[in-house]
Every structure is written in structure tokens, then in C-alpha cells.
């Protein structure tokens, strides 16, 4: 598949340390934002418990939006190291900007199973 072929060859353009640093930065941003989302959602949900389902869904949407920006941050950082890669990085970015927020949104629905 085009996506996996490009991913396999990413090390021809970027060092492992550069890839790791980019991913770590994206993750740090995501976790920092996620902490805020969780704190706000838990506090508000306890006080307005009859709307807890709606709050969780809204928080989930914000979480997936945060994932979108985190992925953008990862590739923005990566491009700082080499902004003319030989692989089709734009294609990888397009796929990840759709796929990862969707995965995060679906994972964020799991708490609804326990409410």
C-alpha cells in the first residue's frame, strides 16, 4: 500500500532521533491538552450528571480535534529537519490527519460504555 511503502522509507529522509523527537513533541501537546479536557469534563459532568453523555461526546470531539493538531505538530517538527523529503510525506500527513483523530474519537467513546 502506498501509505505503508512511504512509512517504510521514512528513515531514508529522517534520522530515528528526529522522528522520535517529533512524535514526542506531538504527544506532549496531546497529553497536556487531554489533561485539561478530562479535568473540565469530569468536574462539569459531576454537577450536571443528566447531561454526562453529551459532555463526554463534546469532550471526545475536542479530543479528536486536539489529536488533529498534535499530528500536524509532529509533521511540522519533522519538516523542520528536512523540508524536501524524497518520500511522499504529504500523502502520509493527509492519511494521518484523518485516521488518527478518528481513532482517538472512537477510543474516546469507550467511557460511554460505563456510564
Amino acid at each position: 500500500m502506498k501509505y505503508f511503502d512511504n512509512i517504510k522509507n521514512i528513515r531514508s529522509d529522517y534520522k530515528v532521533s528526529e522522528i522520535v523527537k517529533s512524535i514526542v513533541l506531538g504527544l506532549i501537546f496531546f497529553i497536556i491538552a487531554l489533561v485539561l479536557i478530562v479535568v473540565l469534563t469530569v468536574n462539569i459532568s459531576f454537577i450536571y450528571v443528566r447531561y454526562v453523555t453529551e459532555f463526554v461526546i463534546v469532550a471526545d470531539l475536542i479530543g479528536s480535534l486536539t489529536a488533529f493538531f498534535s499530528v500536524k505538530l509532529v509533521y511540522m517538527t519533522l519538516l523542520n529537519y528536512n523540508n524536501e523529503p524524497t518520500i511522499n510525506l504529504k500523502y502520509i500527513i493527509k492519511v494521518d490527519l484523518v485516521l488518527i483523530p478518528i481513532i482517538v474519537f472512537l477510543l474516546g467513546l469507550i467511557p460511554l460504555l460505563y456510564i
Partner: protein
Amino acid sequence: MKKTILKFRLYIYVLIIPYILIVFIGVYRIDYSILVPGVNDSVESFIEIVDPYESLGSFHTTSVINIEKPSIMMYLLSIKNPEATVSELPSYFDYISVRESTVMGYLMKDDSINSSLALSLDRLNYESVVNRYNLVYLTYSYLAEDTIEVGDYVLKANDSTDFRLEMNNTVCGESVAITVQKPSGDIITYDILKTEIDGGCYFGLYIKDFTDIVSTSVEYNIIENRTGGPSGGLMQALYIYNELTEKDYTHGLKIAGTGTINTFGEVGSIGAIRQKLLTAVTNNIDIFFVPHRSDSESDNYIQALEIYESLNTDMILVGVANFDEALAYLDSIEGDLSWNTLIILRILEVITK
């Protein structure tokens, strides 16, 4: 990586302090208690009678959310919220943990379910063997370690089975020998000191009777859920009675209420009546039962009436002093909703929610 961080440094400088502040107020806990409207759980979801009679409607307990030691953010969201009641934690909370208080709630619920079962089975002349024990529901932190624990059954004090009299007659600073039976069956005697705390004298124990169904001819299952406390007793008793009776006392309606029950059928007072009433209104309950034991201002029904009159609701509020009054009220309702009408009503409920 550094380049990216430098690119966003202005955002970091501006947002870091509000971020830390919001997380802090969302996490740091303060010594208050907040009551907010909760949920109406169908009794069927936690008490299952095997092979029941059919009923069109349902019985629901009414629970509120009691947040002990809320965060600063929860406090700020609650102080201007007309549905919430904010109060300082009572002084005894210095000596108990939130976890122990929660365990006590679950034990009280178990007792409530057993009392409801015992009452309904007795009313319907089903065979059952019921025992009552004096259970330790809660221990306070000033009680010595490796001594009486939650779940122990109190048998006697100073060799007397009237342990309450013995404990009341003990002077501050003196000990009493309390004999307990552990859940394992071991019988042990402990010397418990009556300690001076906050101007009063206490043993550091909360002991109350616990009803246990030893055996019965009715098959049933109890399913654990997240709610605790004894205030669902009346609804539980009505549900069990209805499940074991051919007549459908629900008449296709959603019936909820609050009030403890004992094995004599007496309905006891409860707290958080405002939040429970609001919970019922938002959950489209048709009939709501409330304890009504006197005409004083502190009576649950009198308090509920005051709140009820300010609400725009078709829900019917009924005050009852005992199980028989509640049953008589349901018995007096004429007609039943048909299945078709019921389905249409419930669909409309979901759409308009």
C-alpha cells in the same frame, strides 16, 4: 523540535498560567459537600425476581449525587446553581474517609433491599427466614487499630446483650468490653475506650441493625450497581410486591419515590428532597412518593410540596407514612395504559428530551 517550540512560545507564555490554574482548581479538593440531582434507577435493574408477573410500568428509586470533598471548580459551579445544595462537611468527616463512608452506603443499601424483601414476602405470606443483627457500619479514625471493623456483628457489651445501654452508661475515659462476631465466624472481645472528641464522648463506632434474608421460597437475584444508601426502600418493597402479585399496580406508569422502609412497613425520612424531586421531574416520572410523617416544616412531604408548587410538571406528588398507604394509593388508580399508548408515550419522551 526547538524550532517548533520557539515558534509557539508566545502561546506557551500566555496560556501556561491559566492552564495551571484551571487544572489546579479542577483537582484540589476542599472540605465541602455538594448535593446535585442524580438518576432514577429502575428497581428491576438491581433486583430480579425469578418468574415474576407481567407489569406494564416500572418502579424507580431516586438517587442524588453527593460529592464529598469536591474540587474548587465543582464548588464554583455549584454555588450559583439553584439545583445544588452546598454545605460544609460535618466535623465528623475529620475522622472518617470518603471510602469508608461509601462502604457504609452500600451496607445500608443491602439492609434496605433485605428489609424490602422481608416486608413484601411477609405481606404476601411467602415463607421466609429473616434474621436481624447489630452490624458495625462505620468506624472512626480515633478507634484503635486491630480492633472492631466494619462488617463485624456486635453480640454484647460487658456480657450484656443490651449493648446500647451498656455503652450509653459508660463514662468518658472508661472502656467497655464489646464482643463481636467477625465475618469469618470468630467471636472476639475487645476493650473499646470511650474517647472525648470535639466536646462529646464517643466509641468511634456506628452500629445499626441489619436485616438478613436467611432463606425464602421466592427466587431472586440482587445485581450490584453504583448507588448506595437506604432511601430506595419503599420503591423496592412496592416493586417486589408488584412482581409477586397478579394485579399490576403500576397501571403502565413510571413510579418513583424516596423513603426508607423497615420490616414493619414504616416509611422513614430522607435527605436531599429538593434534588430528588428535580431528578424525578427531569426523568418524566408519573407518580412520586415521599415520606409524610407529620405536618411540621421539616417533614419531607411538606418540604417537597413547597418545591413542587414552583415546578411546571404533570408529575403527581404523594405523601405516605407507610407501605400500606402507598399500595392503597396505587390500588385506587383506575384503568391501565395499553401497550400501544405506553410505547407512543415513551417514544415521545425520548424525542422531546
